[in-house]
């Protein structure tokens, strides 16, 4: 009896095409008659595929962060974007427009609120070819603004991906306590791709709940960290709303 991959080396050589023709033929015969070995092989394939999809999801989580940053940059005021792109030749023109835009921006600051400050999470990709992805349905509901349905469609597991999106969906449902409940622990998971995003959305949840001092502390921490993807957003929030 070999409950947990006791033939791992053989399985890997077989699956990786590293056996000789004779070894392959012999191994196929063994698989055909040995149910335990076949079960082990299936388990090995399941784990191997699961490891790949796990890391693809991790990368997709990272890309969601890149996307948020790209959108964050796009949402910068016009004069800042010009500076960012280093369009030196526009300097004199920018100076003329700058004064007007600055005044417009100052006016906007006064009107800033939680809703306006929120950078929406773009969600995970939903692929036409990947209908079996655990998150497809939830993400479709999320993008349609059906947050309750999105919440109910999330897979019943305890991964950081699921916990993170539970937090995001609760935030969109304006249930800030539940949002914080799911998001806050992710901030302490150093291996999680969602850790820094969880910082930002935890702070937004605290702010939404009216806990401005606690929220401010989290925003200040992000604002002080130049590596943090939400550093600029935090600085802006602290300047305009706290």
């Amino acid at each position: 009896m070999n409950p947990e991959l006791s033939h791992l080396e053989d399985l890997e050589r077989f699956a990786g095409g590293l056996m000789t023709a004779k070894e392959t033929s012999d191994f196929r015969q063994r698989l055909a008659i040995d149910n335990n070995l076949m079960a082990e092989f299936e388990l090995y394939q399941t784990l191997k595929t699961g490891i790949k999809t796990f890391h693809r999801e991790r990368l997709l989580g990272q890309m969601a962060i890149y996307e948020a940053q790209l959108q964050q940059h796009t949402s910068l005021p016009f004069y800042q974007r010009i500076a960012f792109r280093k369009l030196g030749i526009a300097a004199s023109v920018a100076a003329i427009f700058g004064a007007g835009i600055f005044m417009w921006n100052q006016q906007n600051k006064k009107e800033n609120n939680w809703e306006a400050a929120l950078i929406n999470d773009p969600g995970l990709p939903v692929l036409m070819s990947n209908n079996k992805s655990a998150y497809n349905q939830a993400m479709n509901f999320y993008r349609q603004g059906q947050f309750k349905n999105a919440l109910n469609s999330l897979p019943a597991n305890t991964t950081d991906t699921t916990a993170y999106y539970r937090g995001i969906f609760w935030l969109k449902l304006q249930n800030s306590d539940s949002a914080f409940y799911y998001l806050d622990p992710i901030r302490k998971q150093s291996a999680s791709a969602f850790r820094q995003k969880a910082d930002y959305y935890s702070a937004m949840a605290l702010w939404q709940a009216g806990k401005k001092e606690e929220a401010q502390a989290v925003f200040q921490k992000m604002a002080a960290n130049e590596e943090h993807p939400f550093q600029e957003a935090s600085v802006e929030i602290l300047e305009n709303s706290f």
Partner: protein
Amino acid sequence: MANDSDFIERLKRGDESCLQEIYTLYRRDFTDWAERKFSLDQEDARDMFQVTLISFYENVTNGKLAVLNSSLRTYLFAIGKYKILRDKKKAVMYANLDELPDINMLETDNEPELEKEQQAKVHAALTQLGGDCQKILELFYFQELSMVAIAQALNYKNDNVAKVKKANCMRKLASIFKSR
């Protein structure tokens, strides 16, 4: 600005930070193109760019792509075109795949698909497994690095140590998976 071969070298070394640079460089062009040429909506175009970038990353790390015969932009757009056409199930009608550069290196997701529940179970087991084991299993099964490269990356004494560690982690994963 980094050139295309720099990106490949950095990815080979496991430097994922350059993914963000590539993302920023090409995401807009790609989604504009995909929306215009294939009538994708904005979200599908963005999703397609993200999986395209992951395919590129996997092809670099598993050694299928060592040197680019075209620009990175062309390569990414070629992968994207292939994936979009495949998803639209019109690949045969529209694509002459021979025209695409490095087409033999494009496909990375040909392993069997897992049922939703099975996949969730493996993911939960991996989360429970812990960082070191997650990393070694990622390097071996996802990035498909050799044991020698893994030993170097994780500062193990030699490839035999890495091999034993990897086998132990895989068995531990199997044990957690079966107990759930």
